[in-house]
C-alpha cells in the first residue's frame, strides 16, 4: 500500500503538487494571495484604485474569498483604453517580457511579465502538460506561433520545465511539420485544433497515416472547438486530444487544462480565482450552473487583472475528478456571452439554435436569427435556407421539414419561435461568414 503511494508520487511532477492540495489548504492559499494581489493592484494600478475608491472599498475589506465580489470588474476595453502600459503595476526594469494580442479591431492589448510571473507561467504550463499525460522523455512539437502571441513561448517554456524535449517548429509549413513529426519521432504536438485538422488532411495527401507515427497526444487550444471535433481527431489519428484554455489577458495558455479523464478542464485555482456569474445580473451562479467566467489573477505581479470578464460561458464541476487532482474543473467552453440575447425572459445563444438545426440536418444550413419588437413584445425569427437535401416537392414534405426544425428549436430553447424557410443564398454572407443575429429591436 505504502509502496504504491510512493510509486504514484514519483509519477507526479513536483510542479504539479498544487493540483493535489487539500481543499482547506487551497482555499487558505487563495485567500492569502487574493488579499496580497488586491493590495498590490490598489497601490500600483491607477484605474483599479480609482474604481475601488469610487465604490468605497479598501483592500482590507477582503476578509473571505467571497469578498472578491466587492471588487470592480475588468473589461477587455480597460486593457485597450490603457494601451500600452497603463495597467503595469511594476517599474519597467522589473518587466522581463511583453506579449501582445493581435487585435482584430483597433489597438492590440499589451501584457507584461516579471521574472516571477514567467516562473508562474512555466509552472502552470508544466501542470498543463502533466494533465495531458506528458513527462520527461516526451518529444513535444510546438506548432503554436512564436512571437507576440503567448501560445508559442508559453508552451515552449512549460515543455522545457517539464523536462521534455521541445521542437520549436512554430506554426505553418505543413510538409515540414509532417516530416519532422515522422523523422524526429514527436510524441506530442501543440497547435490550434483547426491547424491539426489541416495537418491530418495534409498527411493523408502525403500518404502518411498518423496511426503509424509515435505521436500520442495533442495539446489543443487558442480557439473554441467541439466534442465532435475531438472525437473526429482521436478516431482519425489514434492520439489523445487534450483541450487547454487560456487568455493572453490572464497569462496565456495555462489557465485550465483537460486531464487524461477528459471530463472538463482542471482550473489552476491556486494562481487564478474563478467565479461564475450571471452574464446579465452579475449574480454569482451555484456550482454546476452556467454563467460567465470571471478570472482574477492571484499571482501575477507585472500586470494583475482583477475580476476579468472573459465573456466565456461555462460552469464549475464540483465533483472530484477520476484522475485524483483536487483542483476543480470547468466545462469545456463552447459559447460566449457576447452572442447571448434574451427573448421573452429566456437566455438564447445562437449555438443552441445551431445545435437544434444540426439535429435535423446533417450539415449546418445557412441560417440567421432576426429579432424584432412589435407591440412591446420581442419576437425572434429563425430563417433557414432550404437545401437540395431538405427540399421535397410536396407541400406536406416541406411542411414536415419546417415542423421538425421548429420543434427541435422549441425543444432546446424551451420557447417556440417563428421559423421561416428561405431560398438559398438569400442570407447575406460577409467575409465568408454569415452574420448570425440581426437585432432590429429599437428601444
Amino acid at each position, binding site marked *: 500500500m505504502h509502496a504504491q503511494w510512493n510509486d504514484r508520487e514519483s509519477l507526479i511532477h513536483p510542479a504539479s503538487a498544487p493540483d493535489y492540495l487539500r481543499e482547506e489548504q487551497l482555499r487558505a492559499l487563495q485567500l492569502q494571495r487574493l488579499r496580497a494581489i488586491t493590495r498590490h493592484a490598489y497601490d500600483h494600478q491607477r484605474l483599479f484604485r480609482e474604481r475601488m475608491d469610487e465604490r468605497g472599498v479598501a483592500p482590507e475589506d477582503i476578509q473571505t474569498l467571497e469578498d472578491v465580489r466587492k471588487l470592480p470588474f475588468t473589461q477587455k476595453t480597460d486593457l485597450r483604453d490603457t494601451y500600452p502600459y497603463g495597467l503595469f503595476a511594476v517599474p519597467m526594469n522589473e518587466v522581463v517580457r511583453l506579449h501582445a494580442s493581435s487585435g482584430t479591431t483597433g489597438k492590440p492589448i499589451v501584457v507584461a511579465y516579471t521574472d516571477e510571473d514567467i516562473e508562474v507561467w512555466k509552472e502552470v504550463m508544466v501542470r498543463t502538460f502533466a494533465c495531458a499525460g506528458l513527462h520527461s522523455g516526451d518529444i513535444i512539437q510546438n506548432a503554436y506561433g512564436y512571437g507576440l502571441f503567448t501560445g508559442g513561448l508559453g508552451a515552449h517554456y512549460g515543455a522545457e520545465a517539464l523536462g521534455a524535449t521541445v521542437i520549436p517548429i512554430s506554426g505553418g509549413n505543413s510538409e515540414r511539420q509532417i516530416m519532422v513529426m515522422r523523422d524526429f519521432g514527436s510524441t506530442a504536438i501543440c497547435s490550434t485544433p483547426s491547424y491539426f485538422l489541416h495537418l491530418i488532411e495534409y498527411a493523408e495527401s502525403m500518404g502518411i497515416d498518423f496511426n503509424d507515427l509515435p505521436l500520442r497526444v495533442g495539446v489543443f487550444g487558442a480557439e473554441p472547438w467541439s466534442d465532435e471535433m475531438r472525437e473526429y481527431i482521436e478516431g482519425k489519428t489514434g492520439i489523445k486530444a487534450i483541450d487547454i484554455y487560456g487568455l493572453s489577458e490572464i497569462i496565456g495558455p495555462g489557465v485550465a487544462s483537460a486531464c487524461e479523464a477528459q471530463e472538463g478542464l482542471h482550473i489552476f485555482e491556486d494562481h487564478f480565482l474563478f467565479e461564475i456569474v450571471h452574464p446579465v445580473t452579475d449574480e454569482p451562479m451555484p456550482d454546476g450552473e452556467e454563467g460567465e467566467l470571471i478570472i482574477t489573477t492571484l499571482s501575477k505581479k507585472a500586470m494583475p487583472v482583477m475580476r476579468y470578464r472573459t465573456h466565456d460561458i461555462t460552469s464549475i464541476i464540483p465533483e472530484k475528478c477520476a484522475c485524483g487532482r483536487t483542483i476543480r474543473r470547468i466545462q469545456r467552453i463552447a459559447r460566449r456571452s457576447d452572442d447571448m440575447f434574451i427573448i421573452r425572459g429566456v437566455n438564447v445563444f445562437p449555438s443552441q439554435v445551431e445545435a437544434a438545426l444540426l439535429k435535423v440536418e446533417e450539415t449546418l444550413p445557412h441560417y440567421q436569427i432576426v429579432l424584432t419588437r412589435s407591440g412591446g413584445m420581442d419576437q425572434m425569427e429563425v430563417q433557414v435556407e*432550404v*437545401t*437540395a437535401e431538405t*427540399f*421535397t*416537392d*410536396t*407541400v*406536406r414534405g*416541406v*411542411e414536415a421539414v*419546417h415542423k421538425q426544425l421548429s420543434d427541435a428549436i422549441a425543444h432546446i430553447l424551451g420557447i417556440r419561435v417563428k421559423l*421561416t*424557410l*428561405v*431560398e*438559398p*443564398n*438569400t442570407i447575406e454572407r460577409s467575409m465568408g461568414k454569415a452574420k448570425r443575429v440581426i437585432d432590429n429591436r429599437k428601444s
Partner: protein
Amino acid sequence: MKLKQLSVFLENKPGRLRELCALLAENNINIVTLSLADTEQFGILRLIVKEHDKAKALLEENGFVAKLTEVLAVEVPDQPGGLSKILEIEEESGVSVEYMYAFTIKSGENAVLLFRFDDMDKAVAALQKANLSILSSADLHQRAEG
C-alpha cells in the same frame, strides 16, 4: 411514360415567380405548363419544360433549389366524370394522389391531367389496365407545340 417535372422552392415574395419565368425565357427555355402550390409560408412551383436538365442547372446556378420528379400525364375526355374515373381506378389499386394539376393546352376533345402518385409504378399499371392513355414526353411536347 413517366415525365420529368421540375419543382422549385419559392419564398412568398412578390416578383419571385416573374423573375424565374424571365430567367427561363432569356435562356430560351419554353414552359409547357406550370402550377404553383402555395401556402402562407412558401410556394412550390412545378414546371414541365422540354430541356429539364438544362433548366435545373440554370436555376441552381441562379440560386434556386430545384428538383426533378416524375409525374404522369393522363389524357381524359373533357367531360364530367373524367377525373373521378382516374381517381377511382387508383383508389381501387391502393395508390393515392400526392398532387395533380391540369395541362393548360387541350388535346382535341380531351383534357390532359398531370399526376404525382405515391406509388408511380403501381399507378401506371392500374391506368394501363383500365386502357387510359398515358402521354409520353414526346406526345406532350408535340401537343404543346401544336
